[in-house]
């Protein structure tokens, strides 16, 4: 075991991939000389050179499309879009090319592309730099979407994503980069299709992903002090969603709270809630609750941003409301 951070785990994953497979290269804004806007690729330019660590101009549509073309042409590109906020400029390439070429061509091609993006709010970066569009991407057939929330997953999901023959979009919540913890020395590839129970419990299933996972864990601790034992599920894979793990938990606890940093309306949480209604209706003792971001562009002042985003306290309150007088 060694002490490390989420950021260092990402870097280790990148280095591992670049070393293993000469077809892998990293492309994006400031990934080279700058060392990555979140310092994830620091030192990689020196190690692997400018052909494989490619700084791009500010041309999201251009370089994401180029990543798609390069994947079609036999490479295994990792395209880093600095944040999900800028990915909107490349949405056409992702949705109309990466997600569709396999289908439109009748299965002739696959696009082994990995796109990594920082996502989320919480650092007072205001409306245009604080989006959580994981739900939008998870809406589109033809791509896979994952959200590593732990060091293990930051370290291990990348290689599996690279080996996957489909486009995989990896969302790294920006507040997680500084997260510290231990990783086993030989930590390696992990699956990208299963949710994981991070904390077992019997009274309620807290279902979360990405940056919200740790808020759910905090909420679970507070609930435990009040005699409510929450089971916390880390979705990990947002497309496809691991229904089996979710339903097994809800069948046990009979209550669910879905935590999602996207806006509530049309959120990924709404999708999870709908699935629970479809598949575990008769096991529910209360309606499925959601803790999401309020219907407002993310404001700049801290107190307002905090009020807009999901928080442990909101998760606790929602859970207790579900418990009724049992809480």
């Amino acid at each position, binding site marked *: 075991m060694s002490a490390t951070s989420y950021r260092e785990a990402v870097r280790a994953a990148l280095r591992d991939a670049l070393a293993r497979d000469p077809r892998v290269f990293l492309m994006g804004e400031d990934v080279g000389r700058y060392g990555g806007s979140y310092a994830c690729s620091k030192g990689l330019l020196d190690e692997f050179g400018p052909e494989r660590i490619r700084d791009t101009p500010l041309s999201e549509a251009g370089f994401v499309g180029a990543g798609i073309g390069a994947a079609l042409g036999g490479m295994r590109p990792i395209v880093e879009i600095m944040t999900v906020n800028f990915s909107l400029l490349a949405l056409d390439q992702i949705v109309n090319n990466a997600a569709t070429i396999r289908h439109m061509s009748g299965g002739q091609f696959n696009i082994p592309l990995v796109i990594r993006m920082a996502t989320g709010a919480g650092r007072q970066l205001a409306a245009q730099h604080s989006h959580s569009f994981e739900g939008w991407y998870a809406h589109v057939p033809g791509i896979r979407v994952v959200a590593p929330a732990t060091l293990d997953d930051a370290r291990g999901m990348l290689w599996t994503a690279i080996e996957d023959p489909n486009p995989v979009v990896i969302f790294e919540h920006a507040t997680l980069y500084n997260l510290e913890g231990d990783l086993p020395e030989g930590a390696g*590839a992990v699956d990208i299709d299963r949710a994981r129970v991070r904390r077992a419990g019997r009274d309620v299933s807290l279902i979360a992903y990405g940056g919200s996972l740790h808020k759910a864990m905090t909420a679970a601790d507070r609930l435990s002090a009040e005699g409510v034992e929450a089971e916390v599920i880390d979705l990990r894979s947002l497309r496809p969603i691991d229904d089996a793990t979710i339903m097994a938990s809800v069948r046990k606890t009979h209550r669910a709270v879905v935590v999602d940093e996207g806006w509530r309306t049309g959120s990924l949480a709404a999708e999870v809630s709908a699935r629970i209604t479809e598949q575990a209706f008769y096991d529910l003792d209360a309606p499925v609750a959601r803790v999401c971001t309020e219907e407002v562009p993310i404001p700049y002042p801290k107190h307002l941003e905090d009020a807009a985003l999901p928080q442990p306290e909101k998760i606790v309150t929602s859970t207790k409301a579900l418990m009724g007088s049992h809480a």
Partner: protein
Amino acid sequence: MAPGGKTHLDRGHLLFLLKEMLRIRRFEERCAELYSAGKIRGFLHLYIGEEANAVGVMQAIGVDDAVVSTYREHGHALARGIAARALMAEMYGKVEGVSRGRGGSMHVFDAGARFYGGNAIVGGGLPLAVGLALADRMRGLARVTVCIFGEGAAAEGAFHESLNLAALWKLPVLFVCENNRYAMGTAIEREQSQIDLVRHAESYGIKSEAVDGMDVVAVEVAARRATAAVRDAGAPYFLENRTYRFRAHSMYDPELYRSKAEVEEWKQRDPISKLDAWLRDAGFLHPDDLRRIEDEIAAEIDDAAAFAEAGRWEPVEDLARDVVAPPPAPRRDAAA
């Protein structure tokens, strides 16, 4: 077809060019008929009038090179060697189609021909072409990616980003802009502050040429020169092929945006008539030759239409196939 190299203007080659253009013309005419009869659905964008561009450019590339095109791609697909049968079946939506019928007229893909669409988003194919060329560069493969698009794409951000990237990273892309003067219903003068499109490319430091897109020989000569340059310099090249479509943007278009007189004027420069006349003058073409060529083409197209008509509808049970590729067998790596 010898990639790069010289254009051989002998009788055999010229007759071949004529036949290739006629094939496209007759194929497109048949598509118009079948569309009117309800056999082909969705959108249909005909290449009639622009045949010289597809035929000329395809002479300059080889089987290893790649082609990225747009929704007006039937001509490029035929000239690239994709079978008329497979193309027609794709129009019909039958499973024997080149894209299993899943794409239709606008999404012709063929892995064997290195034909990457059939892209329906204007400008959407340019970054793809840049990426294909990037892969060739990184893999040390001496291949050219031909990226064909209309002048409408020159207004899209993706056009500028792609030209910039190709020039910056020195990528082997041949950008071929088929300037047919109308982006759907908007004339280029109303679209571009700079209608001289070669100037756009030059501003990115890309070597460019304007070409008479109604002259198949001119197109072939320019394309060969361009691909040779791309291979030699390992840098992109830009051709602006000035051409004209005789038909509407798509089938359902009353062409309110241009005059009949203008269309008639351009029809005087029909690339097929032009080559036909030249060949007759040169004594290379006899009436029997033309009849034989037309008969062969008619037979090929009749066969293609019959093939498509007899084709199979993909079973509805297979609806969800080919959305994602199956993942490799699961691995649990303990060590990095």
